[in-house]
């Protein structure tokens, strides 16, 4: 928790001169807190609220709005599969089903060992190389079943 607080403080110090007020700083600070802790439990949101002197409900409202803020723990390897129209036409549903069967989880769930989380997401902006999986911060493009096998093996 000490580390999270440090990350929050560092982010505030670094970014505050670019933002007009503390309310506007909320998004970058939440990202920093999430990077430090992995997800955003109540305590972390409280920490953010205190550091920015904002009411806690305001912070909860913002985190609930954005799907990129995790309200429950995610696995070490977060598989975010795009299922919008371009990816869908190029077989992303099949990729999702393949991952579901292989890992034994549904979208929104995490494997028991805490290694993988599967999420269906909206357009990742890489329609030219559909279907796309974003794993943590990296893109894997034109993904097929065999690619999925390789990726999952590498991560295990």
């Amino acid at each position, binding site marked *: 928790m000490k580390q999270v607080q440090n990350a929050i403080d560092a982010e505030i110090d670094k970014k505050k001169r670019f933002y007009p007020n503390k309310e506007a700083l909320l998004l970058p600070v939440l990202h920093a807190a999430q990077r430090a802790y992995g997800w955003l439990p109540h305590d972390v949101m409280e920490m953010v609220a205190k550091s920015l002197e904002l*009411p*806690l*409900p*305001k912070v*909860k*409202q913002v985190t*609930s*709005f954005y799907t990129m803020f995790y309200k429950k723990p995610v696995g070490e390897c977060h598989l975010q599969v795009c299922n919008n129209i371009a990816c869908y036409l190029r077989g992303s549903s099949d990729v999702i089903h393949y991952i579901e069967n292989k890992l034994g989880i549904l979208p929104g769930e995490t494997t028991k060992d805490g290694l993988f989380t599967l999420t269906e997401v909206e357009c990742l902006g890489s329609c030219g190389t559909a279907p796309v999986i974003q794993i943590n911060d990296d893109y894997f493009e034109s993904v097929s079943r065999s690619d999925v096998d390789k990726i999952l093996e590498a991560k295990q």
Partner: protein
Amino acid sequence: MGTITFNGKEIPFDEGDNIIEAAKKAGTEIPHYCYHPGLSIVAQCRMCLVEIEGARKLATACSTPCNNGMVVSSESPTVKEAVSGVQEFLLLNHPLDCPICDQAGECSLQEYSLKHAASDCRTDLNRRTYIDIDMGPSIKKNMNRCIHCTRCIRYCNEVGDIYEMVALQRGNNTEIVTVDDKPLMTAYSGGLADVCPVGSLTTKDFRFSKRVWYLRRNDSICDGCSKGCNITVSHEKNLVFRLEPRENQEINKWWMCDEGRYGFHFAQSPSRVLAPAVKGGGSMESAQWSEAGARFNDLVVGAQSIAVVASADITNEEADLLKSSLPKAELYSYSPSVDSSSEDKALDHLIRRKDKSPNLKGLEGRGYSAFSKFNPSKFNLVVYASGGKVRPPYGIAKLSETTVGLGVFLKEEVDGFDVILPGPSWLEKEGSFTNYDEINQHFGQAIRPIGLAKPMSVVLSKYLADSVWQAG
């Protein structure tokens, strides 16, 4: 200052007016949900779209300030189509349960559906459903009816000064909740039902008690504290159902507190004394008006020294009347929370004041002394006049030889009195209160006196002998 052309007519506007306000002054209502003159502007319901000449897109009338020479239309075919589309969109998830909704009859959604929406429904999609949830002591939430205007959230932040209410999730899944289901603890929670344009937030006090179109409304003044908020009394068949704030920019703006809003129940309490009573063999027994009136006169005529103790919730007119009818009496005012108006102060940023009586300032101006100066042993008759809101000081009737109660009393308070002459509460009479700021406000009678209560003017003129008021 300037003019805009609105629907082909030239209308004036004041500096800072938006198009909704300018149109309102000219007598046209531009439909709106999220806009409220007392709250910040977010322009998110999109209901107030208007066409402005020279602008490429339709603009929201709430967030567009008037500019001299602007040409605005709220009736063009483009606007009509857009507004009807917005209305259809807002109704996608609405349950249309008007027959069992408390807001029916005073619901913006209902009115605008009639005026602006298509008469048919083009979808058969499932509507999202939620169960009704308690939101603290005063408010019940029905999320199904919500159209996400966020007036309630802004009301809490900007008026109630609390940050408990939020919109979680987004889009179709948006839900208005209090964080972690905490109860809404604000002294102004009743106002949420006023600002909610649909039937989502209703007060538990009024919920399901009356269809609003049966209610008759009278303007009045709140008697809850020295602020003197302007209110509307809604009543039917001589029963009051609710009080609502009435706009007065000098005093309460658009708001009122819960204490005042729900404070009228004493007047309809089953334990209110509704018939005259006299002391007989230790306990109070109800009596005819003639008997109680005669006893009152005997006591006044026979008394060496009289004190009038008026609780500071009687009207200025009644205070004058007591003063002129009992010229020999010494006059005292009583307020439960302060001794004199100099101790009065604001309790918060908005409305509530420390002095929980509506007319202390008025009584002081009429020569009524502070209650702390009242020495009961000096007098052998005390006339205690009560408007009902202020509960009499404990044991007031036992302090002196004889005590007469004039006005509104509850059964548990009358022990020790010699005579009780029931009078009307402030809802049942007209008069005026002087607020902390020395603004004198007249209010009308909303309902007839309940039970056998008689106005103080009738009691004093009918039952007191002429010699009493001529003695001065």
